[in-house]
């Protein structure tokens, strides 16, 4: 296969802001990108994926090493390569005031396509992406999935040799995610004869498995490179599923993780997924807190964790017991409706969350999760129905009722200019803790959340995983017994995610009621109960295991939550159509 691009000892550092030292984004990456296949640039947020793609597109000047695309050195000769590069930035790069057809026409003009070629290609791409009926619609009025498809069509218009896609699948619903992959795969097949290749950046590790070649990035370093099979080969015979009693799965996960023979123990519905350390003997199921062990095929994430988890992670400490409930649900949503003009964002949603339960609202961006969340928090008045927290409507409840709630927003709502300690002190003050209580809460938070070493650091410069710990620490300073989490672990690496959910597990065991919203299927596995939301409607509810069981067929004996999600949404759409 022909070589499309070569990276040699590539380095890049962002200049430090206000005298801070430069932040290394990429540190000595050497790799080749071949024609005719998907090259997955895989890694958590902050790993350096976007920087790598921008360097490939010639938008950044390397801090060291070289980027060569189609024989052109991108540091000096980027313009010569631009005609053969299709680049889709993370934020689509679409003009929202222009229609679908006008956006395509602009990119055709930019690449100087001849009139007849342009008509034929635009028609083909529109048909192929299913966008043909929407050519007159403004790009800003498209759904997330459709924007991605349009961005993709614009990038594909000039038949690029090198197609660079920066996280094309982030935030879109699972069905669109698969469709997008299908479109690119078909285009690659068509263009392979002309020597086309695709670079697909993603934080979804399951997408890595489908790539021909994977560059696994972690904290700016190339952790591994090669075909996915090469990642998985060393894991053969080391991945198991442990059946555990439903009530004690979190305790079992801790027990298993503490076992020196186990490299990874992740909750997966009512089972644990275990990765055995290389060369270790398999312990008996009872020693791990379960009843039966079965071998399963390794996945990419198992390989990632196996590479990163060299030492067992410290277990989170037990949390202070919260007051007992009165047996009534802590969170109750009944027939909740919210309209914006003639658009119904939330359409008769009902659910209840018991004390000490982790409840997940699962759905793609724009499904109505955030709107539901805001009504629960009392930030938005419902158009109909009720949303009660601890028996109160937060829209009218006194401050004491709000003080029972801890809230961690998606982007962590921290003050980037303040240090870790200053952030904690600020949140302690706004929750009205007394002087003594404040000092105690901050000291204990720094210790329990492992933040003592960075207490004096400015929080904006911290890695994502530490920011997340700080955000959770801030949300828990006042000892709330209800916790709201908005996509808490989307984009973080699997180890950080496991550590985070281990803490949340401890909190739930201490009696904290947790409500999570997410579009990220991996987060859903940690929930006790799930509600799947699509287009404002609640489509299904149940435990992760029960939802999976509903879509189990002979053809799909081991459905993932994503399979379940797609099947349940499709079934409900059919039911509406019928």
């Amino acid at each position: 296969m022909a070589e499309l691009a070569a990276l040699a000892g590539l380095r890049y550092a962002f200049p430090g802001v206000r005298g801070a030292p430069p932040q290394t984004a990429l540190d000595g990456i050497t790799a080749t990108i071949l024609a005719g296949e998907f090259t997955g640039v895989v890694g958590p947020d902050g790993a350096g994926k976007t920087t790598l793609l921008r360097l490939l597109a010639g938008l950044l000047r390397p801090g060291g090493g070289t980027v060569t695309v189609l024989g052109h050195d991108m540091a000096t000769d980027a313009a010569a390569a631009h005609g053969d590069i299709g680049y889709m930035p993370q934020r689509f790069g679409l003009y929202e005031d222009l229609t679908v057809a006008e956006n395509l026409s602009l990119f055709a003009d930019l690449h100087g396509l001849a009139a007849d070629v342009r008509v034929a290609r635009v028609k083909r791409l529109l048909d192929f992406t299913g966008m043909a009926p929407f050519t007159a619609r403004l790009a800003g009025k498209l759904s997330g999935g459709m924007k991605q498809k349009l961005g993709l069509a614009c990038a594909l218009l000039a038949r690029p040799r090198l197609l660079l896609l920066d996280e094309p699948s982030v935030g879109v619903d699972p069905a669109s995610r698969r469709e997008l992959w299908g479109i690119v795969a078909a285009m690659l097949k068509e263009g392979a004869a002309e020597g086309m290749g695709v670079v697909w950046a993603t934080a979804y590790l399951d997408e890595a498995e489908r790539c021909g070649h994977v560059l696994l990035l972690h904290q700016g370093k190339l952790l591994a490179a090669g075909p996915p099979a090469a990642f998985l080969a060393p894991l053969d015979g080391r991945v198991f599923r442990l059946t555990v009693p439903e009530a004690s799965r979190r305790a079992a996960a801790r027990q298993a993780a503490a076992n020196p023979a186990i490299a990874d123990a992740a909750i997966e519905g009512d089972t644990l997924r275990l990765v055995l350390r290389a060369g270790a003997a398999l312990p008996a199921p009872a020693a791990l807190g379960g009843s039966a062990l079965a071998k399963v095929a390794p996945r990419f994430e198992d390989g990632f964790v196996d590479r990163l988890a060299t030492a067992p992670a410290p277990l989170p400490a037990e949390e202070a017991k919260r007051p007992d409930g009165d047996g009534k649900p802590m969170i109750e949503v009944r027939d909740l409706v919210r309209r914006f003009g003639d658009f119904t964002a939330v359409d008769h949603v009902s659910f209840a969350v018991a004390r000490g339960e982790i409840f997940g609202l699962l759905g793609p961006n724009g499904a109505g999760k955030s709107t539901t969340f805001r009504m629960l928090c009392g930030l938005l008045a419902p158009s109909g129905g009720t949303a009660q927290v601890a028996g109160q409507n937060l829209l009218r409840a006194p401050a004491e009722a709000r003080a029972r709630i801890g809230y961690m927003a998606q982007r962590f709502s921290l003050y980037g200019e303040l240090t870790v300690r200053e952030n904690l002190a600020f949140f302690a003050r706004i929750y009205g803790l007394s002087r003594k209580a404040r000092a105690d809460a901050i000291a204990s938070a720094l210790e329990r959340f492992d933040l003592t070493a960075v207490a004096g650091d400015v929080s904006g410069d911290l890695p994502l995983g530490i920011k997340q710990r700080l955000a959770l620490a801030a949300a828990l300073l006042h000892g709330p017994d209800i916790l709201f989490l908005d996509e808490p672990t989307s984009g973080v690496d699997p180890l950080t995610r496991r550590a985070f959910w281990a803490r949340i597990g401890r909190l739930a065991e201490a009696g904290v009621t947790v409500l999570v919203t997410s579009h990220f299927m991996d987060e859903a596995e940690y929930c006790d109960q799930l509600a799947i939301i699509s287009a404002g409607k609640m489509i299904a509810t149940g435990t992760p295991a029960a939802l999976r069981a509903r879509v189990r067929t002979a053809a799909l004996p081991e459905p993932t939550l994503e399979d379940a999600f797609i099947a349940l949404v499709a079934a409900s759409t059919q039911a509406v159509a019928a």
Partner: protein
Amino acid sequence: MSTFSRMHGLVKKEILQVVRDPSALLIAFLLPVVLLVINGFGVSLDARHMRVAVYVEAPAEQTREIMQALDASPYLSVVRIFSTTDGERLIGTGDVRGMLVLREDFSQRLARPARWPAQAQLIANGTDPNTARILEGYVGGALQTWLGNFAIEHRTPPEGGVALEHRYWFNQELQSADFIVPGVIAFVMSMTGTLLTALIVAREWERGTMEAMLASPAGMAEIIAAKLGCYFVLGMLSMGISVLMAVTVFAVPFRGSLLALGAAGALFLVFALALGLFISTLARNQFVAAQVAFIVTMMPAMMLSGMIFDIASMPRWLQIGTFLVPARYLVSILQTLFLAGTVWRLILPNLAGLAVAALLAIGATLAVTRRRLD
């Protein structure tokens, strides 16, 4: 061929964006109207119908005539009071600008000016010294007029023999609109021109569309040319509206050539638009770009361009500083064209100043916009 195709695409995109996005049209067409109305009507340096209190201790034939003479002036309206305490109160509340006091012996002294000159006391509210001085002038003028008539009627030569005669050039009626509106047009153009490009390019950075453009075969010069071209047309339309408003709504006479006006406006717009591009390329964020655009255009255009404050009466070092404010060249050209006519001797040096500013701004923009994100 492909350059033409790219320019075609880029220009079409800009036009569609302008037409679809109300913010650009608001900046180009509504902002000038609002600024002109606020500054043209609101910032008035005119002193018309200034209320002045008059206290006459001993009413007589002459004092009645003086009252009439004061009242006949278009700049004054007389408020009759019957004690100086009333006058003090009215000055204190701001109801009158000042108080004229004619003492008991005024008429007697007037009859024998050679021995005791007749005295009239004017007390003015000094909190606004400018207005106080104007009031003094108008009251003095009205008294002089009356004295002139008095002398003719009584066949005695007026005291001092020469009556002071005021004459104002260019702004004969002392209408401040005539003086201020051309300045406001320059102010409007520096704001709209810079804001248009500053906001719109910053938005392209924010939405990631600039990133997509940079990774395409389009060159930076093409992207800049398309933007400058479209917003240039918009800016010229905006200036046309401002000039039309000046002539119709504010009835400011236009005495110069349209060609000179067009040339000055075009050069200044290129400067303002390029400055906006420069700002947004460095800021890449609509909020910061708007803030910087306001500070670097509004403040100097208002304070240092000669639009409101006379440059000749500034301290010397500040006068030199005003040469760094391109709005001053435009203000000077516009005031010449509106109030005096096409005086090339005044216009050409200022046009040259504008040309230098435009070239510098374009150069600076090209220097900072690389085809890169870093």
